């Protein structure tokens, strides 16, 4: 089942191709499987630069979890919007850009732009984890504006914008926003 989920995610992303905003609706118990499918099966397989925007779990925790799962992603970058807020450890690293809070939405766009510049033309996969966390910290109007600008700029760069969401915990207005912004919503 787990292996099916991995390969299914990679197949779906392959099918939709770049410049398409995709949302994966995941169940909380398949969270790491989904992340693994995106990062390991898809991103590494296609030799993409992966920018992982996290507002849910600090990048250090995610990194440790990926290591424990023996997932090695060559070009993985983090935009960590939660460590500051949690006062978690923020080790200086070329692969991680810290944003003070998940409310500093413009700074998140700028950090993605930063990694895009460093990628020097290499194709990018940008994962936003998660719509739920951002909805928790931001009003819906702001979130809509942010997701619109972020996904459209990524589409223009021929990147792969991927949004993660846990559907059971989404407010109706956030669900509407997601439906409006994403080209494809895939329930897992």
């Amino acid at each position, binding site marked *: 089942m787990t292996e099916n989920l991995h390969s299914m995610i990679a197949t779906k992303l392959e099918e939709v191709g770049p410049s398409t905003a995709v949302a994966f609706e995941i169940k909380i118990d398949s969270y790491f499987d989904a992340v693994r499918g995106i990062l390991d099966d898809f991103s590494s397989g296609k030799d993409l630069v992966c920018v992982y925007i996290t507002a849910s779990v600090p990048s250090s925790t995610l990194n440790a979890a990926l290591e424990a799962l023996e997932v090695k992603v060559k070009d993985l970058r983090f935009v960590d919007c939660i460590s500051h807020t949690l006062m978690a450890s923020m080790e200086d690293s070329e692969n991680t850009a810290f944003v003070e*809070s998940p409310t500093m939405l413009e700074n998140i766009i*700028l950090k993605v732009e930063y990694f895009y510049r460093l990628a020097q033309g290499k194709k990018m996969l940008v994962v936003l984890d998660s719509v739920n966390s951002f909805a928790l910290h931001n009003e819906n*109007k702001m979130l809509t504006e942010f997701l619109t600008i972020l996904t459209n700029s990524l589409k223009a760069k021929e990147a792969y914008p991927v949004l993660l969401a846990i559907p059971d915990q989404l407010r109706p207005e956030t669900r509407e926003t997601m439906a409006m912004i994403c080209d494809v919503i895939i329930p897992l």
Partner: protein
Amino acid sequence: MAKKGERGRCATGIEGLDNVLGGGIPTSSIVLLAGSCGTGKTTLAFEYLVRGVISGEPGLLITTVETPDRMISNLPRFRFFEASMLVKSKLSIINLQEIIDSAGLSGSDMDEAAIKKLVAVIAKLVVAHKAKRLVIDTIDSVLMEIKDETLSSMLMADLSAALHRSECTAMLVSSAEKCDRIEGRVADGIIMMDNLERRWVLLRTMQVVKMKGTSHSRSRYVIDLTDAGVLVTPLLKGGV
């Protein structure tokens, strides 16, 4: 490429700013880069000079507060900056005090004659360095020595004329938080830099208030100072 009857552009090389300006600053303009401390004025002005060097336009930086060495050490380490730019005189950094001393203006009042002399020395330096880009950081230090507004206005006008002759485009850094001072009224362009507080966190912002000779966005943008340069994105409208 400028259209017929349109002034040429000095593309700053700062991608987001050039987009806001519709391609760059009209050549030979004097642009005031104004705003309170910590807003990124010096970093943006320095990138403007470095990008100029990369595109083949030598630059001249006149510092008035910090020594050249200290200024360089405080700036972000741009990935595209090379120390050889300084050695090969493509980017020259001079302290204002050296200029004042060489013009024999030390200790003298900034009267009309002194201002003319000062502008003449700066113009000479621009020609000598073949500078197409000039930054004075900060212009406040020069203007605060001048008590009479008419003389301040004259300094700006004379500087503008001298730079126009050399086809040199200038950024004058100022700590003014409003653009109603004499330098703002006389400058061809004004870029306001600011700190915007949102939920107790500061965002750096940039807004082109005025730019003669081009149509431009007057929206407010958020900037980030990185080693890959100054990055620009629109301020989310729901966020103010």
